[in-house]
């Protein structure tokens, strides 16, 4: 903050301005404010100053196209300046609140490049699907039309080509999904997370009506969230719980809330299934990681479910983590932001 008299000389300077411009306070007091302006724009500055005094309405300048501030060492930084005039009766005083935009601009660049990276990933993934259709298609055609002359081993090879191209297609689909989720604009709305969980639980049960399972779902559990995305989170967590309790005759799956440390509420999905080795807990949320061999649990996916959960939860400003032990079930926790109310 710098306070400037109508003649353009600084009369008050706070510590923040000292730090920002690299001057000692006494070096600034009494000086023309022009010394804080880079040399190349200094000549025009008195004109701008007179213009402001002629119409001393509060204004913020440099928000769209940043201005430049000049430090003692002649280096510059992008700045936004908020000007307020005070009529003291003995003349006008102007306070200038100067904000260093360096961090904000860096973040904006980062967001831009991350967005363009996401679009790039999306279009590359999209293009990669086409040759895969060829791979799977021609191998399949080979099997259908020449299967009898390929021999057993030859057929197996062709079948493996079909299988691995499908696997690659799933990985590509995941990449596309990630890039899409991170470009998604959140449509936050009040959602009863418990109701969504109950619906998914009912779908899981009706998919395998013969399985004995007890779902305990807390309701209502209100949250401010993107309904579609939060549903994906619950589908993954409840789907995992369902999958990894396979084979138990006393399957118990619970959805509930607990007081959170860094948010007002934390949500959890708990099961009494296969659990996991806590040593590898950090790997759980990484894409394509799997702690159980696919053949042990039917319906095991690409190893991307929890990575998706984490991505969505983080998009909401929350985080996700897990607790468990081998054979002793698992609990997956997530928070959204601090705005939930149970």
């Amino acid at each position, binding site marked *: 903050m710098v306070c400037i008299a109508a003649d353009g000389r600084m009369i008050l300077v706070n510590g923040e301005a000292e730090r920002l411009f690299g001057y000692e306070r006494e070096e600034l007091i009494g000086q023309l404010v022009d010394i804080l302006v880079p040399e190349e724009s200094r000549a025009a500055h008195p004109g701008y100053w007179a213009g402001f005094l002629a119409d001393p309405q509060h204004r913020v300048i440099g928000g769209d196209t940043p201005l430049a501030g000049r430090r003692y060492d002649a280096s510059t930084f992008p700045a936004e300046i908020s000007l307020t005039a005070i009529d003291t009766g003995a003349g006008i005083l102007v306070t200038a609140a100067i904000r260093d935009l360096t961090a904000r601009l860096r973040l904006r660049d980062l967001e831009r490049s991350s967005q363009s990276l996401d679009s790039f990933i999306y279009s590359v993934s*999209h293009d990669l*699907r*086409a*040759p*895969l*259709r*060829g791979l*799977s*298609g*021609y*191998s*399949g*055609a080979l099997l259908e039309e020449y299967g009898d002359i390929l021999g057993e081993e030859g057929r197996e090879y062709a079948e493996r080509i*079909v299988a691995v*191209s*499908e696997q690659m*297609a799933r990985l590509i689909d995941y990449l*596309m999904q990630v890039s*899409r989720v991170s470009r998604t604009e959140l449509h936050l709305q009040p959602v009863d997370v418990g109701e969504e969980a109950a619906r998914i639980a009912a779908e899981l049960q009706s998919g395998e009506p013969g399985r004995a399972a007890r779902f305990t779902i807390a309701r209502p559990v209100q949250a401010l969230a993107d309904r579609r995305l939060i549903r994906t989170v619950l589908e993954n967590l409840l789907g995992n719980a369902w999958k990894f309790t396979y084979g138990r005759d006393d399957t118990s799956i619970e959805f509930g809330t607990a007081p959170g440390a860094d948010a007002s509420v934390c949500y959890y999905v708990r099961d009494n299934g296969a659990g996991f080795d806590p040593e590898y807990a950090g790997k759980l949320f990484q894409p394509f990681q799997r702690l159980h061999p696919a053949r042990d649990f039917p319906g095991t996916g690409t190893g991307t479910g929890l990575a998706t959960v984490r991505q969505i939860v983080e998009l909401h400003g929350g985080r996700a983590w897990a607790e468990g032990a081998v054979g002793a079930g698992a609990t997956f926790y997530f928070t959204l932001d601090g705005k939930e109310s149970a």
Partner: protein
Amino acid sequence: MTTPTILLVEDNPDDEALTLRAFKRSNIRNEITVVRDGAEALGYLFPEDDVTPSPALILLDLNLPKIGGLEVLRRMRADDRTALIPVVVLTSSKLEEDILDSYRNGANAYVRKPVKFSDFTQAVNALGVFWLLMNEPVPNHGSEAPIEAGRS
């Protein structure tokens, strides 16, 4: 007698080959005309000599060289000669905006090309059976022969 043709708008030669093969396997005998970009598609649909072909079905890729699939669709729907021809968008994209834009511009169906060979064959088969056999075509094409495709 000729059976109505199918117009396949597809720039990827592999997808073309696999689609043609799938139709053959489904015993769909309609002649299939292949054009490889949007401009060629429009050239086929709106020929200079004005003898407008009326394909019974158009399979339209979205991502095409020169003129994109959506633009082809837009221009087709804006012209009386082609406004009612069934168009199935057959594409790799599952972008929500592509699906919405396709329907908004008058697509009759939207099918994402499956990677898995058997799914792909099945999808093309299902499309052929539905649009050429089950679906009642747009009337006012009285001069054309009945559709003869089918399992023989």
